[in-house]
């Protein structure tokens, strides 16, 4: 333990007692903490995507002028000055990068993942996007066109993923839980209730 504060000690004591009683495993707490950055941060963006999936009028407005369409959400953070939302379809897949630095829609997606700032990601997204997506575990049919959007200080992009199979009965709040940060950057598809539960 690097932190010897009374709070850190008390937290560690509680965690160790709970593990001893079999109420928590070694991985449980770590797994939830990872979610804080990968799921909670991007939750604003996920709400926008879920609204677009549920409300065709909102979706039209979002694709036309995303900056105005998301204004009623009143997200905090000044990073989304001009937001452009690009829609995936059965024939088009969108991928977002910032080739110059790491421009990113913070207010919607929280903090950018480390790889987003990585020079390899930034150059490969332009040079060989299909191979890059393959390395992220996303295999695209050759018939699907890949469009790459280069973010800048003026314009930030967000991918509107395709609504996943098996999500027909879900309401907006439940839908948002299937929208991951990676899907909104374009390196993954939205998670599917069907795939997860093997229905």
């Amino acid at each position: 333990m690097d932190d010897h504060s009374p709070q850190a000690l008390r937290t560690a004591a509680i965690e160790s007692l709970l593990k001893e009683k079999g109420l928590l495993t070694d991985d449980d707490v770590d797994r939830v903490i990872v979610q804080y950055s990968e799921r909670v941060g991007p939750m604003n963006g996920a709400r926008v995507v879920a609204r677009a999936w549920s409300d065709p009028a909102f979706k039209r407005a979002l694709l036309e002028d995303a900056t105005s369409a998301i204004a009623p959400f009143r997200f905090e953070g000044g990073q989304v000055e001009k937001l452009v939302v690009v829609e995936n379809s059965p024939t088009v897949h969108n991928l977002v990068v910032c080739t110059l630095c790491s421009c990113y829609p913070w207010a919607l997606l929280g903090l950018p993942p480390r790889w987003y700032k990585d020079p390899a990601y930034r150059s490969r997204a332009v040079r060989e996007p299909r191979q890059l997506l393959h390395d992220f575990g996303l295999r695209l049919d050759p018939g699907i066109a890949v469009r790459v959007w280069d973010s800048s200080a003026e314009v930030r992009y967000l991918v509107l993923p395709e609504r996943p199979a098996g999500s027909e009965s879900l309401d907006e709040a439940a839908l948002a839980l299937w929208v991951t940060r990676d899907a909104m950057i374009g390196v993954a598809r939205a998670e599917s209730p069907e795939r997860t539960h093997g229905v």
Partner: protein
Amino acid sequence: MASDDRNLPQFDTLAGKAAPPLVNGELMLDAPWQGRAFAMAQLLAQRGLFGWEEFRLALIARIAAAERDASPGQPFHYYDCVLEALHAVLATQAVVDDDAITNRMKQLENHSEKHTPLT
């Protein structure tokens, strides 16, 4: 991610003063223990060791007490309240008792001291 993690109690159920500090929608954490304390509260509530509502009320009570006892200008520490609320509901539900926590803290402290290099 384990699929049942989707059912963890959500932050947005903690409104007003009980809401955690967020930056760009992300939890603002100053030290690792803060995230661990919050994660334990979510996991244990999900597993039914106590109700999320019970935790929420304990948190609100701790925040009110901290505000009442604070001297002027003293900064407010949200996660101290989270940790105290977690400790309180665990003790109330007899999941772990105070003495066990105190003893374990001493053990961990002694262990840490032994491993601190002398300078």
